[in-house]
């Protein structure tokens, strides 16, 4: 290559770059133009990023995914309402067939119509074992899904499964796009197309996810035209960028949210959750497997103090996976802190204090390790508080940190500070936590809990379609947990959000353990009003 040809090549490259840049600058949709964008755009800071935006791989499975709609959706009070289905499903008398009539005239954001074939495609693809969906177990009850004409979908189940309708909030993918490519790695996983209120404009991994309002949304075009989720993992940076006005809202830990308490232009929201922290008490351990020790720990622990000291008051004591303010909670199963009673239980069971104050029975020292996830400050504080409460009753717990790779092989014998919680139905948490046949199956029933009465009750709870009967079954479970706790449930944690006041008063849903993208006050951003203090439309 001669010097001359090099010069020509460089010049060409420069001209191309400059013209491309100029084109980008003059793009009318650019942020630079920004006329009036302040009132019709919202930027929120979130801490977690999804791995994929494809519902076929598990994105948005609990509903509310902004880009997509499910057959059903959950409203502010966690009641099911129709979305892509025209009405709530018709359930057969034996509880084995669910029939959904579909909403007519709905289009995907690429203009192609939505129909029964898309629903069938979505569910069949998720159930296909070649699809890398880690949540497939949740649809275990489904035997088959078929289309009847273009406007009806019928699900047949392997066994009666009362909460099945709650599962059908999962988003529907378009067959004409997702069906044409590799389900696990195709372009659809990062550039999805759905029927939802927002259309994805850009996903810059590790940086942000940007949406624009879908002008043809069947539920009406949202007023907030531009919605951006900035992914900022560091809590302090998120708080700083919220303060500097870079963000309109953010999820924050309680101590950082406090800093905004006096800011008149910002509102703080504490979303109640099903997000619990619990200690597993594995049955294979000679200490934690003893019912007397389990019961003693259950009342030796001071839950109120944990809520005050660790959560700054933003949370509730937990006595089981069901929060005390839920309609499924059984009143009377609360266990107040009572150290004297705990000591008495241990004394009567033969656990006598040894020389160092730690109790001993038949040569077994009342001591066990409690593992928590490295780097999770909240779990660490819970673990340390639990160990210190137990010590007062004469049980020596050593809190140890590790990654899941370290913890998993030890789960059968060692206690673990675990977390979880899904609000949509009591079956979701209790079945996987307590069913004896699921002991040690992956991360289900980590405590190897085995109680015939509980097994029967949770089985009855998921099979019966009658709400009163289900309530009775879950009452049984909660009463059994008082007699033989397999876990020490500690707290239910509120999630704290701070949002700019100009969007008016907002609402939050009851939130799960997972920090879903569309949790927080922006769960219904498509209904926000941008007229200032007018508040959100309902």
């Amino acid at each position, binding site marked *: 290559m001669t010097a001359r040809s090099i010069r020509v090549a460089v010049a060409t490259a420069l001209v191309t770059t400059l013209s491309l840049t100029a084109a980008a600058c003059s793009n009318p949709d650019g942020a630079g133009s920004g006329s009036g964008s302040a009132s019709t755009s919202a930027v929120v800071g979130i801490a977690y990023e999804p791995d994929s935006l494809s519902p076929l791989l598990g994105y948005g499975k609990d509903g509310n995914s902004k880009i997509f709609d499910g057959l059903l959706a959950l409203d502010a009070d966690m009641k099911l309402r129709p979305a892509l289905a025209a009405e709530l499903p018709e359930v057969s008398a034996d509880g084995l067939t669910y029939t959904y009539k579909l909403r007519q005239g709905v289009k995907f954001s690429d203009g192609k119509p939505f129909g029964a074939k898309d629903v069938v495609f979505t569910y069949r693809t998720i159930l296909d074992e070649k699809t890398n969906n*880690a949540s497939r177990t949740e649809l275990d009850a489904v035997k088959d899904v078929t289309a009847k004409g273009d406007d009806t979908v019928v699900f047949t189940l392997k066994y009666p499964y009362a909460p099945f309708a709650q599962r059908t909030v999962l988003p529907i993918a378009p067959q004409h796009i997702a069906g044409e490519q590799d389900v696990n790695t195709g372009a659809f996983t990062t550039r999805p197309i759905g029927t939802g209120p927002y259309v994805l404009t850009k996903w*810059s991994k*590790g940086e*942000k996810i940007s949406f624009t309002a879908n002008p043809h949304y069947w539920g009406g075009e949202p007023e907030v035209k531009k919605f951006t989720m900035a992914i900022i993992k560091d809590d302090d940076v998120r708080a700083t960028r919220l303060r500097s006005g870079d963000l309109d809202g953010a999820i924050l830990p309680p101590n950082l949210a406090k800093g905004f308490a006096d800011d008149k232009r910002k509102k703080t929201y504490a979303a109640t959750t099903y997000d619990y922290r619990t200690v597993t008490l594995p049955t294979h351990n000679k200490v934690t497997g003893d019912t007397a020790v389990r019961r003693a720990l259950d009342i030796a622990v001071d839950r109120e103090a944990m809520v005050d000291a660790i959560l700054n008051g933003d949370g509730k004591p937990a006595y089981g996976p069901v929060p005390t303010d839920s309609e499924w909670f059984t009143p009377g199963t609360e266990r107040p802190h009572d150290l004297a009673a705990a000591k008495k239980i241990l004394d009567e069971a033969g656990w006598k204090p040894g020389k160092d104050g730690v109790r001993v029975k038949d040569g077994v020292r009342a001591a066990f390790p409690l593992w928590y996830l490295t780097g999770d400050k909240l779990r660490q504080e819970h673990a340390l508080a639990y160990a210190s409460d137990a010590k007062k009753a004469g049980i020596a717990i050593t809190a140890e940190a590790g990654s899941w790779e370290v913890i998993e092989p030890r789960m059968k014998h060692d206690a673990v500070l675990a977390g979880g919680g899904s609000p949509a139905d009591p079956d979701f948490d209790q079945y996987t936590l307590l069913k004896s046949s699921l002991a040690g199956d*992956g*991360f289900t029933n980590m405590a190897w809990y085995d109680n015939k009465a509980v097994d029967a009750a949770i089985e009855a709870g998921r099979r019966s379609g009658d709400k009163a009967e289900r309530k009775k079954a879950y009452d049984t479970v909660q009463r059994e947990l008082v007699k033989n706790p397999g876990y020490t449930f500690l707290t239910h944690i509120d999630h704290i959000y701070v949002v700019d006041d100009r969007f008016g008063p907002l609402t939050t849903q009851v939130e799960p353990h997972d920090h879903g993208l569309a949790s927080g006050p922006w769960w219904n951003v498509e209904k926000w009003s941008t007229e200032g203090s007018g508040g959100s439309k309902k």
Partner: protein
Amino acid sequence: MARMAGRRVLFAVPVLGVVTFGVFAVAAASPFDPVKAYAGTAGLTASQENLDQLRANLGVDQPLVARWWDWLTSALRGDLGDSSLMRQPVADVIAERMGWSVLLAATAFLVAILLGTGLGVLAARRPGGWLDRCVSSAAYTLEAAPAFWLGLLAIWFFALKLDVLPAGGLTDAASDVVTFGQVASHLVLPAAVLGVSQLPWFFLYVRQGVADALAEDPVRGARARGLSERTVLLGHALRSGMLPMLTLIGSRVPELITGALLVETVFSWPGIAAATVEAATSVDFSLLAALTVLATAAVLLGNLLSDLLYGLADPRVAFDG
């Protein structure tokens, strides 16, 4: 010259093969589980059957050698495989991110070379002068400072305290169009930090080289003939003083790559280096292997480049071949 380049390229082939095998072996021996990393929080409620199926689908139940051979043969056919971390083909991941990394590294390299040479020449003119003493001690301090620490310091000062530059990202959070102005302002901090972290080496080499050259006979001769200071400095001293720096340019490439790795993570710069960190912790074999090949190739090329430059600049140096 062409023969040397050709020989080096031939030599690179087995090196790259060994390096990729090393990556697979180290990743397989690591305590991280690719299936857990893939499943994320969903894995904490998934059944064992579901997890086992995932393991088979992702191909991570295969023995190490089989997996490596599969990857290598399809890579040679042009198929780099799929990234389990990003849920998209490895080629797409690299195509989307490579440009931003090259932009960052090239800008930083330019900053380091220009600033390093300029300051080096100025310091060499008056060894022991106030400028020399200030810059030299700063350079020694910087040499010891890790790039990510400098990055955090820069964010704290320029973004949080002064609020004059953005703390991270490629563009403002609210903007979803990548414009020249946006990228330029977001590039300043990461490029400056990466450049400044590389600067001491260039500065110290140039300072020493030029100072030595100024004391050599030809330069003193030139001075004696009454040539202007400018001609002496730029025409004579700089030319011979620059020689060691040419070697340095090539050998700094690995440092630049590791530096970029940390700087991109600190500034959430959507480049390839930040993806490397994630690929390693999620045991994303395909992505990790492809990125390692790229990094190794960059290092080998850097070395070749510096040898070629040196040969061109100094006719006394023969090409090895």
